[in-house]
């Protein structure tokens, strides 16, 4: 939902003079969050917006680790899930004791839960970065996810713990029963968390985090302990993940052990990396795309998770900067006015690439529906999974598309080099 304004966010970041543009971006984002449900007011889109909002906070919190501090975590859902569980327990306690705490404060409690767990385990975990951290985070993730099934009184076993968000005291006459009120609660927290996390990247701590990511040894030489910096980053990431978890608990009125699991950790990694870790708005794009695909693809194909895997592998191999990285690569060309020379080669390359992608989709669906299932509907053309003509079409699209695409992308690289050289001459490239 902040899709359009965010690229200029990074623009404001690089031009200290553009204060108006900078605050304008956030005001635009706020306006978009308020207006969106008025335009798309159906129940389904409200639910989607709520889920996307939560995914944005979660992915941004993950990027504090991966993008800003260089810590690859395979267990980020632990903080998210524990935040969710704490929020559910807090809601039940508040309702039972009739404490005067309104619902909008509950995500903060979830955040404190996520932070508390990070405080507890973070010191040992962040001793080293890199592969070791990745493995420990995986181990802790499995440990907590399995323990949650043993500690039934806290985590409710397989079925989880339920709550009722309307049983808390109303605020400004809002009971938070209808989804629209929950959406505005989530939107409020999305904006607050995004601003807070953006502000965090501007603080000295945020800067030293980047330094720890790039060269921990030099950070030590200038008198900082990288371990402490990583620990702090881990706690902040845990805090915002906990907020996302608390919002999920409010949204679904339940917390169960799936919140803590490897699947959830995997999806936040996918969203963040597909969006792009190098820019603040990258995870926002990724969260919107992945959640949207997740909601949209489930009704179209039974193997939607495989498409995530394929997209993710494609991004890792061919565009490690993610979507944000691809977009931002074009900035110097736009400024130098040489983008126009690249676009024709893009258009040429788009045709075989699209054919290749369609071939992959056709192959996957053919295999998936070989032993029964609806006929494949690709761009309105029906294909039968058991027919040899379908296999031939898939093979031609994949092999032919790949071979032609490889030639056309070489052309793109050449055109790109020429455009970049001109841009460099005009002083727009480092």
């Amino acid at each position, binding site marked *: 939902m902040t899709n359009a304004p965010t690229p200029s966010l990074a623009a404001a970041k690089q031009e200290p003079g553009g204060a108006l543009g900078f605050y304008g971006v956030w005001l635009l984002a706020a306006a978009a969050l308020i207006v969106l449900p008025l335009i798309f007011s159906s129940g389904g889109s409200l639910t989607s917006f709520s889920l996307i909002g939560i995914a944005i906070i979660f992915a941004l919190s993950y990027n504090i680790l991966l993008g800003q501090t*260089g810590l*690859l975590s*395979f267990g980020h859902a632990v903080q998210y899930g524990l935040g969710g569980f704490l929020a559910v327990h807090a809601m039940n306690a508040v309702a039972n004791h009739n404490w005067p705490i309104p619902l909008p404060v509950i995500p903060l409690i979830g955040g404190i839960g996520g932070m508390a767990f990070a405080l507890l385990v973070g010191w*040992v975990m962040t*001793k*080293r970065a*890199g*592969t*070791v951290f*990745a*493995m*420990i985070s*995986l*181990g*802790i993730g*499995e*440990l907590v996810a*399995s*323990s949650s099934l*043993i*500690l*039934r*009184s*806290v985590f409710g076993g397989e079925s989880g713990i339920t709550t009722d968000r309307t049983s808390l005291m109303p605020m400004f006459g809002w009971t938070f029963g209808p989804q629209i009120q929950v959406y505005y609660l989530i939107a409020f927290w999305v904006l607050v968390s995004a601003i807070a996390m953006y502000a965090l990247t501007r603080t000295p701590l945020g800067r030293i985090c980047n330094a720890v990511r790039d060269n921990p040894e030099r950070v030590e030489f200038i008198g900082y302990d990288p371990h402490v910096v990583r620990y702090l980053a881990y706690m902040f990431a845990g805090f915002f993940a906990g907020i996302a978890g608390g919002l999920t608990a409010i949204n679904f009125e339940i917390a169960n052990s799936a919140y803590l699991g*490897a699947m959830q950790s*995997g999806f936040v*990694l996918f969203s963040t*990396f597909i969006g792009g870790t190098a820019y603040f708005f990258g995870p926002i794009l990724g969260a919107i795309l992945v959640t949207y695909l997740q909601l949209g693809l489930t009704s179209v194909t039974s*193997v939607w*998770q*495989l498409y*995530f*895997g*394929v997209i*993710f*592998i494609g991004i*890792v*191999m061919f565009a*490690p900067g993610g979507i944000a990285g691809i977009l931002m690569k074009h900035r110097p060309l736009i400024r130098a006015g040489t983008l126009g020379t690249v676009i024709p080669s893009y258009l040429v390359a788009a045709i075989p690439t699209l054919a290749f992608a369609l071939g992959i989709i056709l192959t*996957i669906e053919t*295999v*998936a529906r070989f032993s029964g299932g609806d006929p494949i509907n690709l761009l309105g053309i029906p294909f039968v999974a058991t027919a040899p003509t379908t296999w031939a079409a898939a093979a031609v699209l994949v092999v032919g598309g790949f071979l032609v695409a490889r030639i056309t992308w070489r052309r793109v690289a050449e055109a790109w080099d020429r455009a970049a050289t001109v841009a460099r001459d005009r002083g727009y490239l480092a």
Partner: protein
Amino acid sequence: MAELIVISTLNGVLFGMLLFLLSSGLTVIFSMMGVLNFAHASFYMLGAFFGYQLTRWIGFWPALVIAPLLVGVVGMGVERYGLRNTHKHGHVAELLLTFGLAFAIEEIVSMIWGKSPVDYRVPAVLDFPAFTVFSTNYPAYKIFMLVVSVVIFIALLVTLKRTRVGLIVQAALTHPSMVGHLGHNVGRVFMLVFGVGSALAGLAGVIAGPSLVTQSDMAAYLGPILFVVIVFGGLGSLPGAFIASLLIGLIQTFAVALNGSLASVFGPLDPSLGPSPLTDIWNVTIAQIAPILPYLLLVLVLIFRPMGLLGTRES
């Protein structure tokens, strides 16, 4: 009690040897290439499913040879066309590539063979009790699994210690760039080692498939345990991986067989206390906590001995 100890020891050693078939490849790949291969357990799963399919088509014994070779070819393809191209983006990108592959392989397997367990049976020749300990019949197939893994273990040991190839691999473990300077084609060594490691994982899958459950989530279940094994044994240490495999195999097997809980030792808690985390911990049996024991071990090792049992380096 004696029966439980004998049977659990046999099963534990067996599971440990299977773990070693996987962890040996994983740890060699990690020390040589610096890549923690998330997809290693997926190769094990591929081995089991290839084995199942080939057994149905051409019988178990050809499958025992062909399936691991196929998995090895898949592994070499992953190294040659995936990892080698990703190498320029750094170790995190390589790790993420294998993570994405593990995810995709699981989805592909469940797409082709379904999410429920497949009917991968012990071959008829080996479907008889080998011997009877006390009152338990010990299946011959498990003895066969043990023999295969021990033979592979010895072959691996001889190859690494007594042959020229083993010498190069050993050198590349600690000084990959020096090996390159000496004129060896490090890229090809990497590809071969990756292929052999995947093939070993595939072999483990073929022989473990009929005995354990062949299902599309078997990789997700075993993968994290493998990481525990190689961290526990010390990253890059083959003897360490061997000891850790056996130890974790034994711990897991014994824990599953034991039924004791704090309540059975100290008596039940006062029921007036009501349900709380304490009662959960009090009543949980050792068998129930078996799945989390490896991870507890991992956390303890990382706190008290970060380089692992026999490891020499910390990361």
